[in-house]
């Protein structure tokens, strides 16, 4: 046995080495095929441009905004002097929670129906898939228009947190549905069969066996949804309105992204707008690292 491995290992190493080209070889090859060399340079150049733009954007926002993160900006009441972002920050949390309380169960239940109950080739399932696809392609301004026409005007809710949250529910629903569906599909059928074999009913199998094993995947979708809600502006402008206060559910209040839009379109408080951009960016960074952690957990199984 010992001799065997001793023979195998060098050959593998040997082959790996043979498959590698040295830098000098590569340069010689590019000189012989200048077209290939140019393409290689272009490819690497494009990648550098992409990541340079990203780094520059993040650095620029941080450098420009951080000096203006004063305590004044976080005072509880908004006045035209302090342009506090605190009410908008609280509204952002309320808006996120409110939207998810409705969208998460709706999306997960829909996914349960699609994966666990619907039969293959069901007409209804096809319609649901097409509409979910359509929803995920609709731009946020169209959601905003619809929210204004339906929740604000037709249902007489007025511009309110509730109207904004309901608009966002429709917006993030396809995202949550799709990720939950994928997570449920990834649960091995043997889990379900074992549960049925032990005498559990379908409902019990779903809630005690299938859903818990799909939690990381579902969570990843919900985190993505939070990211979209925090950054959303166009869908909220004419549904939740832009009043700088923390209202009750039926009152108008702006979220952080809206706060930033109002400040930068008025143009009097650009420094405070850049500070708000920093806060939003920090949230986005936090959410991205969270979803990265969840993804790692999924990969580990």
């Amino acid at each position: 046995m010992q001799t065997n491995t001793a023979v195998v290992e060098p050959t593998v190493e040997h082959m790996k080495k043979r498959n590698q080209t040295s830098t000098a070889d590569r340069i010689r090859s590019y000189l012989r095929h200048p077209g290939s060399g140019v393409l290689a340079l272009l490819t690497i150049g494009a990648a550098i441009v992409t990541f340079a733009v990203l780094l520059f954007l993040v650095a620029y926002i941080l450098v420009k905004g951080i000096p203006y993160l004063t305590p004044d900006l976080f005072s509880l009441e908004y006045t035209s002097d302090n342009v506090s972002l605190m009410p908008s920050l609280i509204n952002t949390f309320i808006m996120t929670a409110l939207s998810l309380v409705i969208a998460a169960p709706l999306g997960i239940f829909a996914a349960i129906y699609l994966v666990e109950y619907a039969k293959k080739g069901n007409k209804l399932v096809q319609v649901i898939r097409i509409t979910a696809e359509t929803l995920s392609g609709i731009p946020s301004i169209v959601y905003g228009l619809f929210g204004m026409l339906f929740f604000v005007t037709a249902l007489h809710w007025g511009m309110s947190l509730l109207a904004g949250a309901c608009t966002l529910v429709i917006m993030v629903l396809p995202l949550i549905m799709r990720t939950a569906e994928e997570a449920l599909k990834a649960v091995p059928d043997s889990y379900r069969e074992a549960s049925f074999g032990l005498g559990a009913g379908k409902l019990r199998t779903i809630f005690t066996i299938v859903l818990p094993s799909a939690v990381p995947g579902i969570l990843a979708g919900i985190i993505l949804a939070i990211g979209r809600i925090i950054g959303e502006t166009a869908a909220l402008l004419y549904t939740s309105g832009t009043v700088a206060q923390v209202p009750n559910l039926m009152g108008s209040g702006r979220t952080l992204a809206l706060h930033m839009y109002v400040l930068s379109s008025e143009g009097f408080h650009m420094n405070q707008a850049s500070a708000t951009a920093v806060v939003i960016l920090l949230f986005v960074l936090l959410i991205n690292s969270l979803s990265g952690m969840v993804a790692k957990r999924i990969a580990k199984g």
Partner: protein
Amino acid sequence: MNRFKEQAMKIVFMVAACASVLAVFLICLFLFANGIPAIAKIGPLKFLLGTVWKPSNDKFGIFPMIIASIYVTGGAILVGVPIALLTSVFMARYCPQKIYRPLKSGIELMAGVPSIVYGFFGLVLMVPLIRNTFGGTGTSWLAASLLLGIMILPTIIGPTESALRSVPESYYEGSLALGATKERSIFVVMLPAAKSGILAAVVLGIGRAIGETMAVIMVAGNQARMPAGLLKGLRTMTANIVTEMGYATGLHREALIATGVVLFVFILIINLSLSLLNRRSENAN
């Protein structure tokens, strides 16, 4: 009792699944019911092809906005698609193992940055830069296209990379074995093999660009007239809705909703071609 619960929950799940159907139905119903009468009142041809938008004089022609949306999106495609394609080639075939994870999360971060932050970046950096280099006001077609070109990068890179990765490795190896260089194998053999996936990614990018609102409003200038040049301001359909909806009443307001209807129809056409493309790439595999 248990049986009843099972049945009841099955119906609950089914109703939840129908929420998306109901949402699409309501969106179509409310948009069309509020927009179509306005188009009929103004006259479909006058509305779609009229070149003058003067709500105070009851002139509602959105042709300049339609053209502006197409121009801005076209510019974004010109800026974004080549960079995005080459970057996805880099991610799929060139990227060293060690830096792959950080770069990948970089692209995810790029997709997660809200459009308002991109818009702010464009407003405080790109617009003054264009103003100082080329003159004019800076808020322009050029600024909007550059900014949107950056914004659609992650939208296109993600699907393109996975399309490239799903091309069988044997294609690449076979091409190498025939004596082609790495670049020739990638650009002449693998890219054509991943063609329909890449096309779907580009269409996705077009959809994102044409529907983008907040970033465009902040850098495009929003003048409601025919686009006059790369360095002149223009107003897209999305910008038209947001800038005037705040104070519009009566027919003016309905005309804005009708602008939304036209935008919605554009998006539906893009969605339709996207799902056709996806079906084709599924069949190809």
